[in-house]
């Protein structure tokens, strides 16, 4: 999406040899090289795994010839670089291969698990943004007061807490002791597969279906893991907001605005905050990317059937096609979000040109 936007811009201004077009081509080139490198590293790691993928297909009792057939069928007899390019060719055609564990196409598996992660990370980011930005702005405005100190402590605790431990403690307190939230998983066991899949995100699907009972149940399950991810996102966003705001608040135009007699609220929100919006969006994009990839441990704690858990399970059972597919998808999103925030910066901040 980011690229399409950029393309449009490049074309509108001037046809060829424009800096925008060159930048676009350069960006596309660097994405391609990065993605290829990412895939290659994963591929090589997958090939040196101590677990034999052939054995996990044919079983330990298989005869030598069965083993050899399966070995050749997986293409393992070819040189590793040839195997790699065969794989890339397939990926470009939307074929991530077949999972060794359940013999289903990996692309389908990813389509199934990815919305769960997306739902979790999106909700977490929304929480992080709605709490983190005000907290950061207030901390900057009331610099040095107890509110600033509190914001600092909140952020430091967030940076220092092991996420899986916080998840466990959350489950213990809010599920085990207080019983306020649903336990692990996305919905209660009675409700599994009850709503038709449209987006794969259960909150949206149940709302579309008008099934508010399931919606409520799903909400009670997602609220805790999302809050935990949201806390980390908030810690990061509030810190960044604070330092961006401090930079603006010491600028001369703020003094001018104050001297003009504008109310402090206008000075803060209409003048200073307006100028950090672009920087903030890049920070939010980064934090979103981090949540998407960083939800691995959270998903395991909460038995959340997302892409993090999918990759981990696949890794531990040497299901290399699944690992590769999952990593490439996560990596691609990560790279795209990074580039998106970078481009946004260039487009909206004239100083970055």
């Amino acid at each position, binding site marked *: 999406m980011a690229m399409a936007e950029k393309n449009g811009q490049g074309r509108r201004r001037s046809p060829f040899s424009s800096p925008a077009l060159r930048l676009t081509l350069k960006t596309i080139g*660097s994405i391609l*090289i*990065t*993605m290829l*490198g*990412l895939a290659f*590293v*994963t591929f090589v*790691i*997958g090939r*040196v*795994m*101590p677990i034999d993928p052939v054995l996990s297909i044919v079983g330990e009792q298989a005869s030598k010839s069965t083993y050899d057939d399966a070995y050749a069928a997986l293409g393992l007899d070819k040189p590793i670089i040839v195997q790699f390019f065969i794989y890339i060719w397939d990926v470009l055609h939307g074929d991530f291969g077949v999972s060794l564990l359940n013999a289903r196409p990996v692309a389908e598996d990813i389509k199934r698990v990815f919305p769960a992660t997306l739902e979790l990370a999106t909700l977490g980011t929304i929480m992080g943004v709605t709490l983190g930005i005000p907290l950061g702005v207030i901390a900057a405005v009331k610099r040095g007061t107890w509110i600033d100190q509190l914001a*600092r402590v909140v952020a*430091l*605790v967030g*940076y*220092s*807490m*092991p*996420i*899986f*431990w916080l998840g*466990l*403690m959350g*489950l*213990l307190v809010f599920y*085990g002791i207080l019983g306020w939230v649903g336990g692990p998983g996305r919905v209660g066991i009675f409700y599994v597969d009850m709503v038709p899949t449209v987006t794969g995100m259960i909150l949206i699907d149940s709302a579309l279906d008008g099934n508010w009972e399931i919606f409520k149940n799903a909400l009670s399950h997602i609220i805790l893991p999302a809050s935990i991810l949201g806390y980390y996102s908030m810690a990061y966003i509030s*810190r960044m907001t*604070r*330092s961006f705001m*401090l930079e603006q608040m010491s600028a001369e135009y703020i003094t001018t605005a104050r001297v003009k007699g504008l109310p402090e609220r206008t000075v803060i929100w209409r003048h200073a905050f307006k100028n950090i919006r672009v920087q903030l969006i890049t920070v939010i994009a980064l934090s979103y990317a981090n949540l998407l*990839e*960083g939800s*691995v*441990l959270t998903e*395991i704690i909460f038995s959340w059937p997302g892409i*993090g858990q999918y*990759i*981990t399970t696949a*890794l*531990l059972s*040497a299901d290399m096609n699944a*690992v590769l597919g*999952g*990593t490439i998808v*996560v*990596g691609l999103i*990560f*790279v795209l979000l*990074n580039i998106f925030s970078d481009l946004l910066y260039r487009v909206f901040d004239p100083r970055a040109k």
Partner: protein
Amino acid sequence: MAEIEKQGLRAWLMTDTPTSRRHARFAALYAGWLTLKANPMAMVGLAILILLLGMAAFAPLLSPHDPFEQNLIGRLQSMGAEGHILGTDSLGRDLLSRVIYGSRITLYIVALVALIAPIVGLLVGTVAGYTGGIVDAILMRITDIFLAFPRLVLALAFVAALGAGIENAVLAISLTAWPPYARIARAETLTIRNSDYIAAVKLQGAGAFRIITKHIWPLCISSLIVRVTLDMAGVILAAAGLGFLGLGAQPPSPEWGAMISEGRRFILDSWWVATIPGLAIFTVSLGFNLLGDGLRDVLDPKDGDSA
């Protein structure tokens, strides 16, 4: 040290007119220390880390029990039980002793990663920055690839490929941690590369190797140290995460992340088994974060956001 001598030492350290290169260096260090000392949060962080060092060094003296000694009759005793202040785990091992011994593993991992990642980054970054051209392009492209990788997933894949264990966890974490150092070192090198004193050294006939190791590395160190301290919290969390997934230190080793994973099964009945090692991880990484924040203000005032 006697009071008079201390005064003399202080004056020597506070001087505005250092008499030798070493004198100037000590004076600068002392000034930095004074700034750091004025920051109570950083001091708390330092205290936590000193405590951790002490705990690791004197583990056999401090721990009331053998951390590996099982006692199946006394399993899952709660906190404050007879002889077990923090209770026991599912095999009846004393939790306090295990947490104390676990500090050794944490320190071991942190120390190794703090050595490997910055050195690899420094090497790649300075060589890329100083050589420029195609070498720079290739090295930085590789750095970008590793930066683009989801860190935990890369570490996971790496450990899964090499086999679980502490050494491989250290390698995996270092593998994900070096790219930022390379970026920093390269940026520093680019600003230093064209300065006059490098030109002077070149005229004296120094080769690239000598220039990089003797004249560029020393100037990159301070920004790397800040980054290391701030990174260590992340390293501890990553190591704990790998341990939790069963890919780090192997049982019966008292690694904190693995202890949480053990305690997870009894979380609803015996909450302390998973809670206590988690608190230990939290405290130590908080210590590194606090100290790192303070150090950043001292060594790198332009980024400091608390000043």
